[in-house]
Structure formats: structure tokens, C-alpha cells
């Protein structure tokens, strides 16, 4: 091959790379994600301080404390919210923390939450959690704004509309400040109502989708949030922390499931995002090489 031909072949390569047909990218994405969904890699994690703050707070609660969990996710954001919710439920059940589930974003949310809770309650380590004994489903409240205001004013009265004020879970709860935390697992802007109405009665923990992180980090920095768990990575953080507290290596915990969707989705996610970074870099390098080649000739 002559020198000129070589240069030509080289520039053709960069040209292809610079204007790659999008379908090749799609194909690579499908292959990478399929591979890692079928064969997940147990990637190490670096737990973010925001997730750790919430985990430490909840983990430090006493047995029998009650928290309010507002489940505002449905199947459309299952990819991010399910991992967070599963890990949260595991932690609460293992620590014997009682909880009340409410929903304000979607009428279907309670059913989906119940499905997850019931499957986790059967696991070893979940202390055989029973509905109406260890946890209670308050269900869907259509007007979020009013619901939050009423919860802050008189939690018993508001939950009485769903007939659960006499449940054993509600024992000793006369005011919202008797609840040890309010945890919002959400895919929509429902948390804003709580910021405005909470009047400092209970610490708020937020588990949100990554899209919402930008608007909520300031509230964490300001101390209005006890902890902030962001996206699929946050779910993975929670699972990692669970595994640290209940390690497989300890025979007592060897049957526990610590990792589920969080880690399962994390390796495909990391590789898909790596693909994105690499493709951006490759596109730029190709552009640069072509430009330099253009200058040379």
C-alpha cells in the first residue's frame, strides 16, 4: 500500500466514525444491555453520602418506631424506583420498623407497592411482616396538597378517612411528629408539597428518579432532607449498605437477599453510560483527525 492510499484509507475510517449510522449505535446499546442484563457483573460501588445519610438515620431507629412511606411510583419508572423501594422495605423489615404506606401521585401506586412488600415479606430476615400488624396500607389520596396539609395538622383524622387509625401500627401516633421519618419514593414533583407544609414535624427522606436530582440537591444541602437517594444508583447504594450491615459471610445473615434490582440494573447502566461517553469521545477524535488531515493536505 502506498502512502497516499494509506492516508485515504485512514481518512475513510475517521469519516465513517464521525458520521456513524445511528443504527450501529443502537445495536451496540442493545447488545451491551442484553449481555449485562443476562450476565450482570457484580460491580463495586462507591456509596454517595446522600444515600448513606438516609440509610444511617433509618438504620439507627429503634424497633417498633413508625415511619410514613409515601409510594408515588408506578411501572413507568420501575427501572429506578423499584430498586429503591425494595431496598427500603428490606431495611425497614429487618429493623422491625413499622410503616404506613400512602400515595398521592397515582391511584395504581398502592397496588404496585403492595406487590413488592408482599414478596419481600416472605423472604428470610423480613421478620414475617404482616399487613395491619407491622405495616398498613392507607392507599391513594386524590388531592395531594390537601392530604399533606391534613397529615401535618391531624394525622389520625386524615388516616381515619381510610379507616386505619385503629390499626396496631398507629399505636402511639397522635401527631405527625410521632412518626420518625417521612420517606417519599417518587417519580414526580410530590415532594415539593412536603417541603412547604412539613413545619419541621418529622425528618424527610427522598428517593427520587435521577431526573429530579438537580432540583432536590439544594434541599439536601440545606438540611431540609435527611437523606436523598437518587435513581438506580441510589438503589444500588442502599443495597450495598444493606450488604455491609447484613453480610453473607455472617452465617446469621447468609440467607438474606441484599441485592436485587439495584445491582442488577447498575452494571448495564454503567456500561450503557460508558458507551455514551466512548461514542462521544470517538466522534470528537474522528472529527479532530479529519480536521487535521484536511489541514495537512
Amino acid at each position: 500500500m502506498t502512502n497516499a492510499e494509506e492516508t485515504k484509507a485512514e481518512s475513510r475510517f475517521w469519516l465513517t466514525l464521525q458520521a456513524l449510522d445511528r443504527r450501529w449505535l443502537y445495536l451496540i446499546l442493545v447488545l451491551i444491555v442484553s449481555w449485562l442484563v443476562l450476565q450482570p457483573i457484580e460491580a463495586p460501588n462507591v456509596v454517595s453520602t446522600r444515600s448513606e445519610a438516609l440509610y444511617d438515620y433509618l438504620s439507627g431507629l429503634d424497633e417498633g418506631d413508625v415511619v410514613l412511606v409515601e409510594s408515588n411510583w408506578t411501572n413507568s419508572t420501575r427501572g429506578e424506583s423499584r430498586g429503591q423501594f425494595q431496598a427500603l422495605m428490606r431495611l425497614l423489615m429487618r429493623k422491625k420498623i413499622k410503616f404506613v404506606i400512602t400515595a398521592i401521585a397515582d391511584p395504581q401506586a398502592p397496588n404496585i407497592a403492595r406487590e413488592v412488600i408482599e414478596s419481600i415479606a416472605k423472604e428470610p430476615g423480613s421478620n414475617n411482616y404482616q399487613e395491619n400488624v407491622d405495616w398498613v396500607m392507607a392507599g391513594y389520596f386524590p388531592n395531594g396538597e390537601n392530604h399533606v396539609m391534613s397529615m401535618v395538622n391531624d394525622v389520625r383524622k386524615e388516616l381515619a378517612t381510610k379507616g386505619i387509625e385503629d390499626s396496631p401500627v398507629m399505636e402511639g401516633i397522635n401527631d405527625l411528629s410521632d412518626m420518625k421519618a417521612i420517606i417519599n419514593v417518587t417519580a414526580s414533583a410530590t415532594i415539593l408539597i412536603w417541603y412547604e407544609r412539613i413545619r419541621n414535624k418529622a425528618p424527610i427522606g427522598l428517593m427520587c428518579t435521577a431526573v429530579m436530582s438537580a432540583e432536590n440537591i439544594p434541599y439536601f444541602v440545606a438540611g431540609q432532607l435527611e437523606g436523598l437517594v437518587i435513581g438506580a444508583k441510589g438503589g444500588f447504594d442502599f443495597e450495598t449498605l444493606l450488604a455491609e450491615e447484613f453480610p453473607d459471610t455472617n452465617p446469621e445473615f447468609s440467607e438474606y437477599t441484599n441485592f436485587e434490582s439495584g445491582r442488577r440494573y447498575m452494571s448495564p447502566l454503567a456500561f450503557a453510560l460508558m458507551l455514551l461517553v466512548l461514542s462521544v469521545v470517538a466522534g470528537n477524535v474522528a472529527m479532530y483527525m479529519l480536521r487535521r488531515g484536511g489541514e495537512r493536505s
Partner: protein
Amino acid sequence: MIDLLAQAQPDNVFTRAWWDALVTREESWQILPTAFKFTVAAILTVGLYSLLYRENRFYRFVEHLFIGLATGFSVVGIVWEPVLHQKWWVPMVGAAGTDETAMKLAYWPWAVVLPIGVLAFFVFSKKHGWLSRIPIGIILGLWAGQQFNAFQNRYLPQLADSARPFIPNQFTLSSRLDPSGTLTVPDAINNLIVMATFIVVLSYFLYSFEQQSKLFQRSAIAGRWLLMVGFGAIFGTTMMTRFSLFIDRAYFLLIEWLKLGPIA
């Protein structure tokens, strides 16, 4: 390939059990087997994904099915059931009492809403087209009236938050242990950056002022750049969510439908 399927579930798509499940109902009263429903959902998903290669008849079929189902659901599940029936029909005609429930009064004035709504259909008439402006005008008027309150609630607190103190009251570096109300040097610098960014970006959105002054032009350019930083940050966080959703679909297709891998 073999390695990839090492962890497949015992009833994966390459086994007889999977195909049997397609036609086996779990309970006698069920009409459709669960595996069959999963298969339909998966085929529809693949149909939409085929758009990525190019527009084709399969996609077109799924697209029209999607629009039909979605619009049908709007009619029943979004408009008829929660709005027209619950908020209009039931209050309007009321209900006779029974032994257990009280009678519901019939608030007949709701009936006037129907002719107002029907006025909108005059939009197709050339002669009386203006009558359609009345229902549309009512909707727009109600929207417009709400904006004053909305502006107050939404933007004024943000404005207040943008005015941040920038003179430190404690000349140290920040720490999480500082008591509240402490303004350290880095906090003060960050507050200044926040304010400067706000003002510079806002200056890009001035339309009528003379753009001759050098300072103003530079500020507008810097405003655009800072906007790009904001947009880049949005791009970064959003990508994570979108990829997670696709991974969840891949999980549905490969694990829940074809059962080619372990569940957890």
C-alpha cells in the same frame, strides 16, 4: 452463547415448559394465560422498537393500535368516569336514597354546562364560528386569572432566594458542624456565584435594550454559556433515568418474558 444462558430459568423459552405455559391457564376462571399476556406485551414492545431500524408495517400496526387504545382509554378512564360522570352527571341528577345511603340532591343548574360545551362545535360552521369562542374563552379566561397567584407563589420565593448574603460572618472554610446562620468564606463565594449567574443569564433575556454597550454584549454571551452549563447538567442527569428505563424493558423482555436469566 452457552455461557450466557448458564443462569437461565428452568422454564426458559428454549424449553417445552415455556411453550406449554403459553396456552395453560393458572386458574380455571381465567380467560387468557398469563404467559400469553406477557407474550402479547412483549411483541408490542418489539413492534415499537422496530422504529429504530426504520418505519415499517409492523410499527405502523402497533402505532395505530396504541393510539386507538390510548384514545379509547381517555374517553372512558380520563373523561367519562372521573370527570363527566362523577363531577357532572351524578351531581346533576342526584340519586334516590336507600336504607343505608342518604338521598343525593339533584343540582340541576349543572345542566347549563352541556350547551356551553356544545357551542365549541360551531367551530366547523363558517357563519356561526364565533360562538365557539365562548367555551374556549371561558377556559382561557380561567387559565389567565390563575396566573397572577401562580406568579406570586412560584417566582417571588425564587427571587427572594436569589438575593443571598455575600459578606462572610466567619472567616473559615465550611464545615458540616457550623451552627446555622454561619456564613463562611466558601459559602459567601458560592452565594456570589449564584447571584452573578442569575443576573448574567437574565441579561441574555433582555430584548429591547440597546445592545451597543460592550459590557452588555459580553454579559449576554456569558449568560448563554452559563445556560449551557445548566443544560449540560440536565442532560447528564436525564440520561441516567432514560437508560434505566430501557434496561428495565430489556429485563422485561429477556428475564420476565423469555426467562433467559436469573430473576435477581
